[in-house]
């Protein structure tokens, strides 16, 4: 059917903006454009970070440092970690999907602060470019994404300072984004829409943004002190000058443990949007989901020292942080069972979106189990700084967040572009990614349990075979990108037209054209009080009728 748009009378702040594809490289204020800017920019950094990961896996094919020199290896792993966390997962699960979807979900025409939103996005490309070019100029930082002193003070200063400035910019961008999301969700809700009627992704973003606002500034302050140590030779974290490295670790993990939730909570939210649509059932346990998210937010702020069990942590602290960390398994478990219950007995359509979501559930529960194991002090001391931690972390951020990013791209691509993605290519992409990912990271648990340290270019020859298996998995993951890239480009040019609501979904972003107009809806925003009312009478309870075209 055709939809015509009456001219909008309010807020013509976009009237001077370019209208064609140029708006994607301009200082656009449209939340949808900014969301896609985040997504494409993040994906480019994902490819760069992936090339670095490939370099790491090639180096680890043999026990000696032959492909990369040791200091280059350190730079490569530092850049890989920093890029993947700060330039890919955090901006994409928060910035990209948050900006695109949150205004729809709250029934608004844009974010609360569109200009701040654009500023937040445009802080990312310079920060990323700085970080990457530092490799070619004076050498990049070598102290890992954690930048622990004294390592970060004693390695070459130039790269480390660029790293700090870059992470400060990205942190600032993240804080601005967080402020914007909190204000949008709490203040811009359409009249008549109650908090407990919001789609789950809103709750996930509210929780995430609270974590961002509370914890990112602490990282910023810490990095400023670290830069003083490097540039002005103060001794905050330098034991040689009377400083205390443990204080850095506490402050760093006060941000960086919540950072894991900043990466994974929005993914929880996105999965909660995708599963009901493709299994045609309401999201199971909405209220418990909301309380679980808020429980994770509160607990997430008080578990940071479980990263420091080998840092001379006193026994009472070990006990407290072990117990608090184990408790996180409760809300996370609730969410896991709710997702399974959502799928249970549903009319599930097997497509790429739900395959990646189910892949997420499987990988995430594995990563969650190793997470609970790592929270136990005796076990943690055994595997601290080994490949077991690498495996656990990648099961959470790749098996968890990245799988959800792909699932979300398959789910929302029709809305973004108006075109369907090719399902055959999507399933090939999923199969390659799922097999490759598990082949790459599952063996690393074994490596870690047997004592292979992480972040080292050379290792004991007894680990050679397992490392080679892992590298084959990495190769499959690299190959899996090709059908995906071909799919998004080909479908954009020649894909089947999607229509407004190809999945027959009920959430508000589907109740407009694909792609949506500048201010989201031609008329008033629809009031969707049952975003998951699948399997019910579709015209009851004030829900807008399903848009069939």
């Amino acid at each position, binding site marked *: *059917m055709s*939809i015509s748009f009456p001219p909008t009378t*309010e*807020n013509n702040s976009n009237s001077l903006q370019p209208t064609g594809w140029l708006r994607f490289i301009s200082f656009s204020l449209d939340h949808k454009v900014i969301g896609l800017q985040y997504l494409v920019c993040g994906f480019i950094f994902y490819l760069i970070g992936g090339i670095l990961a490939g370099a790491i896996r090639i180096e680890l094919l043999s026990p000696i440092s032959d492909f990369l020199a040791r200091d280059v290896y350190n730079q490569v792993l530092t850049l890989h970690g920093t890029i993947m966390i700060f330039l890919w997962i955090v901006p994409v699960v928060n910035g990209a999907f948050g900006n695109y979807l949150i205004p729809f979900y709250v029934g*608004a*025409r*844009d974010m*609360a*602060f569109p200009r*701040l939103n654009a500023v937040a996005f445009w802080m990312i490309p310079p920060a990323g470019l700085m970080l990457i070019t530092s490799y070619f100029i004076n050498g990049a930082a070598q102290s890992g994404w954690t930048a622990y002193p004294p390592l970060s003070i004693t390695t070459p200063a130039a790269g480390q300072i660029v790293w700090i400035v870059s992470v400060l910019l990205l942190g600032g961008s993240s*804080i601005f984004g*967080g*402020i*914007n999301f*909190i*204000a949008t969700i*709490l*203040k*811009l809700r*359409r*009249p*008549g829409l109650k908090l407990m009627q919001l789609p789950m992704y809103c709750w996930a973003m509210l929780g995430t943004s609270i974590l961002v*606002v*509370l*914890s*990112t*500034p*602490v990282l*910023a*302050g*810490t990095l*400023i*002190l670290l830069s*003083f140590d490097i540039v*002005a*030779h*103060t*001794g*905050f974290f330098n034991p040689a*000058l*009377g*400083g*205390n490295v*443990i*204080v850095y670790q*506490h*402050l760093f993990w*006060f941000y960086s443990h919540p950072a894991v939730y900043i990466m994974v909570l929005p993914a929880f939210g996105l999965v909660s949007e995708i599963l009901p649509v493709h299994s045609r059932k309401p999201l199971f346990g909405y209220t418990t989901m909301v309380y679980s998210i808020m429980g994770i937010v509160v607990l997430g702020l008080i578990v940071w020292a479980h990263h420091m069990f080998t840092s001379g942590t006193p026994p009472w602290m070990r006990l407290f942080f072990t117990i608090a960390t184990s408790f996180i398994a409760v809300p996370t478990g609730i969410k896991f069972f709710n997702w399974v219950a959502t799928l249970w007995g549903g009319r599930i359509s097997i497509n790429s979106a739900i395959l990646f979501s189910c892949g997420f559930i499987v990988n995430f529960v594995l990563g969650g189990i190793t997470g609970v194991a790592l929270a136990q002090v005796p076990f943690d001391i055994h595997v601290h700084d080994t490949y077991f931690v690498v495996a656990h972390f990648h099961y959470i951020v790749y098996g968890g967040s990245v799988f959800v990013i792909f699932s979300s791209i398959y789910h929302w691509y029709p809305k973004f572009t108006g075109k369907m993605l090719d399902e055959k290519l999507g399933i090939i992409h999923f199969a390659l990614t799922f097999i490759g990912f598990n082949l790459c990271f599952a063996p690393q648990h074994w490596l870690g349990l047997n004592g292979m340290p992480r972040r080292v270019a050379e290792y004991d020859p007894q680990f050679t075979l397992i490392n080679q298996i892992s590298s084959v998995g990495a190769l499959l993951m690299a190959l899996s990108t090709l059908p995906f890239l071909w799919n998004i480009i080909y479908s954009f040019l020649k894909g089947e037209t999607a229509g407004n609501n190809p999945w027959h979904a009920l959430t508000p972003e589907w*109740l407009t054209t694909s792609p949506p107009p500048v201010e989201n*809806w*031609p*008329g*008033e*925003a*629809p*009031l969707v009080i049952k975003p998951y009312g699948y399997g019910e009478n579709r015209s009851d309870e*004030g829900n*807008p*009728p399903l*848009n069939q075209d």
Partner: protein
Amino acid sequence: MTTIPSPKEKSEELASSDHHHSDHRLFGLITFLVADGMTFAGFFAAYLTYKAVNPLLPDAIYELELPLPTLNTILLLVSSATFHKAGKALEAANSKQCQKWLLITAGLGIAFLISQMIEYFTLPFGLTDNLYASTFYALTGFHGLHVTLGSIMILIVWWQARSPGGRITNANKFPLEAAEIYWHFVDGIWVVLFIILYLL
């Protein structure tokens, strides 16, 4: 168009505009100040941890003089009151009075900075002397940066208020309100800083 809100919702929709921005801006500012406060909280936590676990050598321990920082505390507390006065004057549509109080507030802020500078020059330790000195300068310096920005903000608001036509009026008082909330926040941080750094 397939989605038709009921007439009741329509009227609600019309009654509420998406563009009551001033409320949201204040909300955004307060959220930002929470974030900013967390930066200070991180610094305070670092300072207190250092104090607890990194004892200084006896010759590095220095008892801070109290008169100047006490004067600073008074300056900032009075400036919070004068800013409040400026807000009240604006509410009473008394622009002249409002400008006067704004100028006095900015003056007090600058007096604070000068007094802080005098303290820096009279202290017997420098930035890199020891852990305590570094933390002292980091905390007071970061706060001083906030006072500097705040004073500039107040002067901008004052400039806007005195310009003919009056860009700051009862109808457009967001810049004044924002600067005022920020200024109270900076004063509050100073009180905490004064207690932790000078009195404890």
